Every structure is written in C-alpha cells, then in structure tokens.
C-alpha cells in the first residue's frame, strides 16, 4: 500500500530508473574503503583547457634564441597569455632543431598560411634563425589543476602554480582515515534517516548537519515531501532543524521521529542521546560572541545531490561544506548547475561527492524497484 503511494507520487520518467540487480549489502559497521570523496570543482577548474591557434617556428640557429625571444616579445607580445612559455624543447631527441618558439597568435598574423617573412611585421622582426612556421594550438587560460596542466602540456608548455590541496583532493586523498571514518559515520546516519523516511512513504533521501569542530551531529532529517509539505526535502528539513536548535525554526517534526536536532552549545553527548524536536530548553543564542549563526561553519551530509532549491537554501544558510553520496539528474552541485562555485553569489563553499556512494545509490534503487514493481 505505502509502496504504491511512493511510486504514484514520484512521477519520474521510467528511463530514469533502469533496473539493475541489487548488490550484496555490506556490513555497515566495517570501515568502508569502497568509497572515495572527490571534490566537485568549478567548470574553470574541471573542464579541459580552451585552445587557441598560434604560429610557431623551429629555431634553426640556437645562437639567435635570446635575440628572437626579445624581439618577438616586442613585435608580437602574447597579451593575457603570461602562462604560455614562449620556447619549447622538442620531445624527440636527435632532432636537427631542438627548440621551437611561438611567433604570434594566428589572430595577430597578417594572413593565414603565410611564410616566415610575412610574419616579420614589415622587417621589425629579424627572421634569421627561424625555420618554416607551422600552426599549433596553445592553451588560452592558465591551468588551475594538475589534470588541466597535464592536458595543456600536451599542446604547449605552460607555467602552473599548483594548489597542492586541490591536487590531493582530486586524487581522493584529502581526508585522513579518522576524517573518513567520521564522514562515513555521518553519512550512515543520513542513510538510516533516509530509510526511515522511505518507510513512511517519503523519497529515500536523508541529510545530517554536523559541526566539524566538535564533531557533533546537530540535526538529522529525511525527506518529508509526500507528507504535509511538498517542499520538505531532506536538506530543507535539516536547515529548519538547525534553526530549531538555535531557538528558531518554522515547523515542528513531531510526526517524524527520525528528524531530530541538538543544541549546538550543549555539552557533547553520545549520538544516541540526541533529543527529539520539541523537548529542547530554549537556551540557544545566548552567548555574546561566537553564538551560532544559521549554518555558518557547519557541514551537511546528504545521500543524494541536492536540487536547485535545496542548493540555494544552503547558500542562504552559509553552509561550510557539503558532502553527498550520489548524483541526481536535476542536481545543482555538479549535475545541472554548480551553485556552490558560482562567482555571482555571495557565498561559496566546497562540495564533495561519493561519500558512501554505493549505499546512497542503493537508496535510489529501492525507489526504482518499487517503481518497476508497481
């Protein structure tokens, strides 16, 4: 009965749910090395470098090299391309002319396909020592990540100011074993909440808000959209639960015992002691300095990539970081948009995906199976 209710209200196109066999469930207690958290980077950082056409030529007389570089810099300065190295060494050994130089951008050349004397800019450039020019593609922007640098270097050498943190993150090695086990613990709480929500006829999505400093869970919520409110997605529920913990909040969640919060200022307590909503003494926001301000500095763990509404709600709430398990079609942290990296917005933050990816994917599969069987 409840299964049918779920599937009726999903309204997703059938092709979204390709039925695949369910994998054997792992024991949830063992430390899981099956997942890796990867950063969801901005397009600038993650797309292949854009390329532009340029004329290069071999240096036939090595002694002319320094003069040529000097003259080329005056006659054909590469404006806005400070990352491009003007001269490159040919990779093949034993070549007669081991050095090549960028003469000019194709757009700066007098005409396409000209020989070197046409490129001499009416004699301003002394072309002695330069061989027959040829067309190359050079990266238009400085590479921001190591993969981009490696990609760019296939075309022409560039300088690269490496952000080591990003490189490590892209390898999936940013988090220590302790951090990873905490991340797994938080996501497991989100998965558990998702299951409880799902059993009540909601979509199988769960979320958890954590204060990374105290390593304490502040709120646990699950999707409640098929209950009383169509916009009560798991993230929206969690944001409001955090507000409840700060003495605010717009809703009560008495109907949903799995949706819980704690006071951020209260002394650390084991997770099982998380009190349910409504039983909280009103003592939040009393501290003079450093009292909690919406979700500033907190981390969110959510089983599925948030939709546009939830993603923007997290921007408004000044969330610290977001971790999600699995991507979603309309997702706004990588799939359809990258709201966390949008320069126009006043708050940006890091997003990681893949935390406990398989278990989160399984939650979607449960829904899929119901859909297929109904």
């Amino acid at each position, binding site marked *: 009965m409840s299964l049918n209710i779920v599937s009726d209200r999903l309204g997703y196109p059938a092709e979204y749910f390709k039925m695949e066999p369910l994998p054997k469930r792992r024991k949830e207690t063992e430390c899981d090395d099956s997942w890796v958290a990867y950063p969801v980077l901005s397009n600038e950082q993650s797309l292949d470098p854009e390329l532009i056409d340029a004329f290069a030529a071999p240096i036939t007389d090595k002694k002319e090299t320094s003069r040529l570089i000097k003259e080329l810099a005056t006659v054909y300065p590469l404006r806005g391309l400070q990352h491009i190295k003007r001269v490159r060494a040919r990779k093949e050994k034993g070549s007669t002319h081991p050095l090549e130089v960028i003469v000019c951008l194709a757009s700066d050349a007098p005409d396409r396909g000209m020989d070197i004397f046409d490129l001499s800019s009416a004699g301003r450039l002394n072309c002695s020592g330069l061989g027959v020019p040829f067309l190359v593609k050079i990266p238009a922007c400085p590479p921001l990540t190591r993969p981009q640098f490696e990609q760019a270097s296939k075309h022409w050498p560039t300088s690269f100011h490496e952000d080591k943190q990003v490189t490590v993150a892209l390898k999936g090695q940013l988090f220590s074993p302790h951090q990873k086990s905490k991340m797994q613990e938080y996501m497991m709480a989100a998965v558990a909440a998702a299951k409880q929500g799902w059993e009540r006829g909601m979509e199988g999505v769960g979320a958890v808000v954590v204060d990374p400093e105290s390593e304490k869970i502040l709120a646990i919520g699950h999707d409640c959209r098929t209950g009383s409110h169509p*916009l009560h997605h798991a993230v929206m529920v969690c944001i409001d639960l955090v507000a409840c913990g700060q003495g*605010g909040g717009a809703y009560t969640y008495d109907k949903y015992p799995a949706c819980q919060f704690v006071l951020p200022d209260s002394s650390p307590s084991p997770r099982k002691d998380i009190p349910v909503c409504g039983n909280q003494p009103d003592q939040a926001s009393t501290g003079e300095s450093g009292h909690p301000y919406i979700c500033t500095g907190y981390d969110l763990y959510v089983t599925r990539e948030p*939709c546009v509404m939830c993603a923007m709600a997290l921007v408004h709430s000044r969330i610290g970081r977001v971790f999600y398990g699995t991507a979603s079609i309309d997702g706004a942290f990588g799939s359809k948009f990258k709201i966390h990296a949008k320069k126009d917005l006043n708050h940006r933050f890091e997003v990681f995906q893949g935390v406990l990816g398989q278990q989160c994917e399984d939650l979607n599969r449960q829904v899929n199976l119901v859909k297929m069987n109904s």
Partner: protein
Amino acid sequence: MSCPSNIIVPSDARKCLHSSEGFIARWFELSCRSTCASSLLHPKMGTDNEKDAVVVRENFQPCAEDIEMWMASAFDMAKEALENGEVPVGCLMVYNNEILGKGRNEVNETKNATRHAEMVALDQVLEWCRQRDLKPRTVCERTVLYVTVEPCIMCAAALRLINIPLVVYGCNNDRFGGCGSVLDIPAADLPLTGSSFKCISGIRAEEAVEMLKTFYKQENPNAPKPKARKEAGRQYSLAPPLHNLIHPRVYDELNTVCPTSGPPLTPVFQVREMTNVPS
C-alpha cells in the same frame, strides 16, 4: 492562520491603475519570456487532469488591471515591512481573485535563512488547501505570485516544484535572482523539478529598489559581530544583513531594469528619489 478575504486598494492606486493601463498591457507583452510562454502550454505529462491543466494554463492570463491591483497590494506590504524595520519585500499568492497567501521575510525570527516571503506565503496556500481538502497542485496551477522583487534562485525552484504558472515581480535581484538575473530557473531544463513558469517583470521597479536601498542603509542586528579592527580604531559590522537581497553596488545597475522606451510607471507611493527615469 489569517487569510484575508478582501483586499484594500488605496484610492490613489486605483487612479494610477487607469492612467497607466495601456502601458501595463504593453509592458506585459514585452516582458513575457517567450521561452517560458511556450513551455507553459506544454501538457503536464502524468497529471490526472491533463486536459484540464492545459486549458487552465492557456487561459491563465490575468488582465492588466488585476496585475496592477495585486502589485499595488504587494507594494503596500513591502512599505509596511519597511516601516517596521523588515526587509521591504511584499509578496502575495492569488487564486481565483482571492489572496491565499501573504508573506514577508521571516528569516530573523525563525533563524532559518530560507524563510523568504515567497516560502511564507506558500505555506499559507498549503494551509488553505488543507482546510478545504483540496490538492495543493490543482490550486497552485491556477495561482499567481505577485512579489515586489524577483524571486531568488531557491524560491524560483520552489515555485517550479509546486507548479505555479505565472510570477509577476517588480525589480530585478542581481544578487540572487532566479528568474534571469543570476540563473534562469523557470526556463531551465530541469525535468524533475516541477514545471516551468512565465514571468512578468519590471512593474514599479524603481520603487521596489528605493525601498530596498532605504532598508539596507540600516544594519542587521542579528549578524555576528566581527572582531574589532585595531588599526581602524573602531568596530563596525562587515557582515552583510541576513538575506541581503541587493548589494549596494548593484543599485545603480538595477535602475536599468526600468523600461527605457515608453512612459515610466506612475508611482503610487512617494518615491524618495528617482534616477534614470525617462522623461
């Protein structure tokens, strides 16, 4: 819950309504986003009353007089909010000539940054549906949102999710706007995020901007206090106001949203200063 059954339109608003009627009609035509307009007529696949929904959406065109009247009411609310030290955004949801939801920002009192006027108004619509045992979807599909400022990205997505067909707003929101300013959510390809909606924008835009300017000259007492800057010798808040809709630096740009062709909209309320208004 209070659902006002009638709406008070100030007498000067009525005067204005007649004087700029022609302009509104033209502005209406100009501002409808063509992409959204065509998608509005899409049959909603999978709805129980598919045919009905199409008819409703096709006929869903409030007249210019109605638009102006409801916007006047939204501006009343914004003005009232400003006088009470609240973010001056007025917002109402109208169904069958009845206001089902009226909202103002409740971010500070709820400590929940998602409590924008639109979300508050929507809650009232849902409560109205609950009391009458009506499906929220059938009601929302015939409900227009009138709001003095362009809905933010979050609210625009929320409006999609609940299938609102038409949004009428005043000034652009260059900071967070989700109806074209930062992202164009109503027209975006989001198959699992409800349905796209149509927008009519620029109604009394200068006035909406002026109210926001006035508001953001004040400080937000709820923002956390930054550490004192010793070299500056004084303490001041660097934190932006909570739910800062418009940044001061974009105020001037905002004036460009006003129509440059055709007569300006006659302000119903006194606008403190008007800039860039074509004569």
